[in-house]
């Protein structure tokens, strides 16, 4: 499933299938059993929970993955990572902490210290705006 680059979502996004985001999301993303790909055009301001997270675009917020976080060479992450495996390519921008001690799914949460870019609270429920 893809979320195109003209789509803006404010709120909570959850699901049980792999997802690629090219648009903007503010709030929270939960795909705990699936792969989440943040595409090159995507701008995310959210807490992210997924099985595997691939970042090619921009993420401001904490990322927690059950298996792996992979920040590609053009990826930008300002926030804390929690995952058993973390890969950061040359050229990627990262600012925050990396916790590889635990399984990730529970490690970075709202209570975690020093979120680098905690998103503003948003109303529950997705609001999609096509431009």
């Amino acid at each position, binding site marked *: 499933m893809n979320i195109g680059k003209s789509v803006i979502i404010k709120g909570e996004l959850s699901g049980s299938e792999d997802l690629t985001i090219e648009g903007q999301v503010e709030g929270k993303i939960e795909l705990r059993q699936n792969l989440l790909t943040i595409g090159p055009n995507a701008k995310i301001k959210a807490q992210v929970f997924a099985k595997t997270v691939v970042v090619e675009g921009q993420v401001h917020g904490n990322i927690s993955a059950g298996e792996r976080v992979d920040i590609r060479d053009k990826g930008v992450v300002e926030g804390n990572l929690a995952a058993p495996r973390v*890969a950061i390519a040359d050229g990627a921008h990262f*600012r925050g*902490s990396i916790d590889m*001690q635990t399984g990730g799914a529970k490690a970075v949460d709202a209570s975690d210290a020093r979120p680098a870019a905690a998103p503003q609270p948003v109303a529950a429920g997705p609001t999609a705006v096509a431009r």
Partner: protein
Amino acid sequence: MSPLFNWAAKKGEPVAPERPASLITENLSTSRALPKFIAALAHQSAPVLLDLGPVVGANVSFFGDRLACKMLIEDLHETIGGVITERAPETLATRLTDRISRVTGPVDGVLCWDVFDYLDRGSARALASSLRDVLAAGGVLHGLFGTVAQPASTRTRFIMQSETAVKCRTEPWLAASRHAYQTGEITRMFEGLTVVESVLLQNRTRETLFRKR
């Protein structure tokens, strides 16, 4: 004394030559202090490691695999670069200490790499003091200190290859001054920490490992 950090590509080549800014060079070097740094953290459960250099994915994987640690990345080159760009050197000490003060909780290990070479005396002392405060009892701090002051328009990324081997990738950067501090001055900067290892390398860089009692 063995050449632990061979910056020159070939034996006998002049040390720290002026490099054209357009070039990226890589050299493999050997460390005596990093194995002790890793050993000091390895016996701890879930250590917290503070890295003051630019993020290097290979290092994240390396330390994650060996130590199952939590890594805090505070790229001080970013802060130093901002000060150079804004031509506001008087703000450097404050910016550095502010940044370290945001590190939550004590850390078990600090990787300074060569960041102190880019700091004036006041900023270096202020940063050393902040790091000493944030370091946990028994924690270790690793640093590389140049002994030749010189202008530089490059910076080096240190990429762990093994516990004793480090790839040094020198790349173009902002025009900055590299400072040199005497061994005694370095020791005084980190007053309160004990020198575990201090090796003067053939390239006139001092590799030092400190421990907090």
